[in-house]
Structures are given as structure tokens and as C-alpha cells.
């Protein structure tokens, strides 16, 4: 088999994942795109391992490690996304603008006291998205 086939497929999958990471708004869809990018890397590792006939099988061992790290990453990532959703009422990465600087910084600072007040962290969810929504609008 020509080595170009798996290499080109991996490059295109990586680019598709890159588009998804940059263009998606929901954080879970961003995580899906990250999985696509990791899988493109895995395909490259397997293809080059088979091509080089490595005696240590470094490519396949690293592929297994990448799969395990991706599983760990998706677990932590989903926990973080759920925590953000629970605190803010949204999982849209476009709305998480508390560290934003610019002409709207004062307006954001005026009404986004959510992260610095741990007592409100769990209770009143409806306040979060409304304030964020009007801050965005």
C-alpha cells in the first residue's frame, strides 16, 4: 500500500478536527473535534510503525498510550464542562468571557461576580445565563 494514503487521510482528519475546534460553540463538540485530531495522530503512528517494521513497535505502543490519555482527557474535560455548565448555566465557549479585556471589561466586571463568590456557586443557576446573556448582548 502506498504510504501516502494513510498519511493524507491523517492530515485531512487533523484539519477537520482543527476546523471543529475553532468553529464549534458547544464545549462538548469541541471535545469531539479534539478526539478527531488525536485519532489522526494515532493513524499516523500506526501507519509509520507498520512501514518501518519497528522491532520495539514504538508506534503501536504509543498509539495505545495515546488512546488511554485520550480517555483520561475526555473524562477530565467532561467533568470540567459539567462544572462550568452547573455554575454558569451554559456550555458555550463563546460566552465564557470573564477574562476578556477590552472596551467591555468594565461592564463585565460590574456584573460577573459569579466566579469569585463560592456561596453562589451551586444555588441560583437562572441568574447566571441571564446576566451573561445581557452582558454578551
Amino acid at each position, binding site marked *: 500500500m502506498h504510504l501516502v494514503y494513510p498519511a493524507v487521510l491523517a492530515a485531512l482528519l487533523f484539519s477537520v478536527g482543527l476546523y471543529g475546534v475553532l468553529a464549534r460553540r458547544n464545549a462538548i463538540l469541541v471535545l469531539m473535534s479534539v478526539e*478527531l485530531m488525536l*485519532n489522526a495522530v494515532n493513524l499516523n503512528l500506526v501507519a509509520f510503525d507498520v512501514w518501518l517494521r519497528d522491532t520495539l513497535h514504538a508506534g503501536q505502543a504509543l498509539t495505545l498510550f495515546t488512546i488511554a490519555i485520550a480517555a483520561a482527557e475526555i473524562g477530565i474535560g467532561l467533568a470540567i464542562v459539567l462544572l462550568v455548565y452547573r455554575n454558569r448555566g451554559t456550555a458555550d465557549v463563546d460566552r465564557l468571557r470573564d477574562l476578556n479585556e477590552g472596551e467591555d471589561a468594565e461592564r463585565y466586571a460590574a456584573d460577573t461576580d459569579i466566579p469569585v463568590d463560592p456561596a453562589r456557586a451551586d444555588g441560583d443557576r437562572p441568574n447566571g445565563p441571564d446576566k451573561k446573556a445581557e452582558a454578551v448582548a
Partner: protein
Amino acid sequence: MTGTADVTALAANAHGFLSPAGVEILFLLVGIVTLGAAVVTVTTKQLVHAALWLVAALGGLAVEYLLLTAEFIAWVQVLIYVGSVVVLLLFGLMLTKAPIGRSPDADSGNRWAALAVAVAAAAALVWVVVDAFRATWIDLDGAVQGSTKVSGESLFRYWVLPFEALSVLLLAALVGAIVLSRRDIDGGTKKQPGTTGKAGKADKGGKH
């Protein structure tokens, strides 16, 4: 018919049931399906459909691993990605109350910039890869590269230490996920003000 001759020749080589040209054609077809599924995954407006198309893309990649004679990786891919990662993603979609139907704001406003970046990256990568490996062929005949026996021997002979370190990493990640997603830490501090609440908060901060 050439098929039977090829099959017998390849069976003598302890290799699969497809001729080399058949492997190549099947790789191309499955690659096209995988790429299409990936594109639909990142462009569809329905969030749950994105997860299901991701299953198609990851399953197609598992078939590609099989065609590259990396059998163990293929089944690990099916087990971990299709079996658990996608289920985790679906749980995440469910717990964040993702809309079931079409959600028009699935893509952010900078999608055209993202498209430009992705197309530029794809063009650069594909050009470099094609130019670099234009005369390189993978020899898929001979012994299977990634059978369970071979993978297990290399993994537990040369890669034992990273393997064990990775198991510790997985344990730490899962404990971290549990700690992050527990609800009763904040609730406990709220219900019991005073010293116990502060202790609980400090404990939570330490675990993070």
C-alpha cells in the same frame, strides 16, 4: 480467477484475505467514508447526530487499523473510543441539556476564519506529506505487525514502565473527574457553616 490464487498465496504468507490491490481500494473507500463522517461530525447542527457520526468516523478508523494489520489497536479503538468515549460524550450532551433538534447556534461566528485556517493547514500538510512520501510503499505482506501476541510482547517487554505510569495517570484522572463532578462538596459547606465548612472547603481546594 486471480482471487483464489491471491488468497492462497496470501494465506501462505499468514496474511489476510484480500489481495494488495484489494487492501488499497478498501483503504481508500473506508477512508472516504471516515473523512465524510468526520466532516459531518464537525458541521452538523444536531448535537446528538454529531456524536453518532463520530462513531462512524472512529469505527472507520478501526477498519483502517485492521487493514494496516494492527489488529490489537483496532479492537482497542472499538472498545475504548466507540464503547466508552462516545458514551461519555453522549452523557455529557445529556447532562448539559443539549437541544435534541437543530440548534442554529452550534457554530460560532468565527467559522469562516476557522475554515480558512483548516483549509490552509490541510493544504500545507497534504502537500508536504505527498511530496515527502511520493515513492514510499508499505509492505503489508509477511508477518502481521500488530497481532495481540506481538503487541503484548513489545508492550510488556519494552514498554512496561510507561504502561504502569499510564495506569497511575488514568487513576488520577478518574479520581479528579469524580472530585470535580461531585455535588455534595459545596452543598456540605453551605449546610454546615463554621469550622467544618471551612475544613471542607480547604479539603476541596487541596484536592484540586
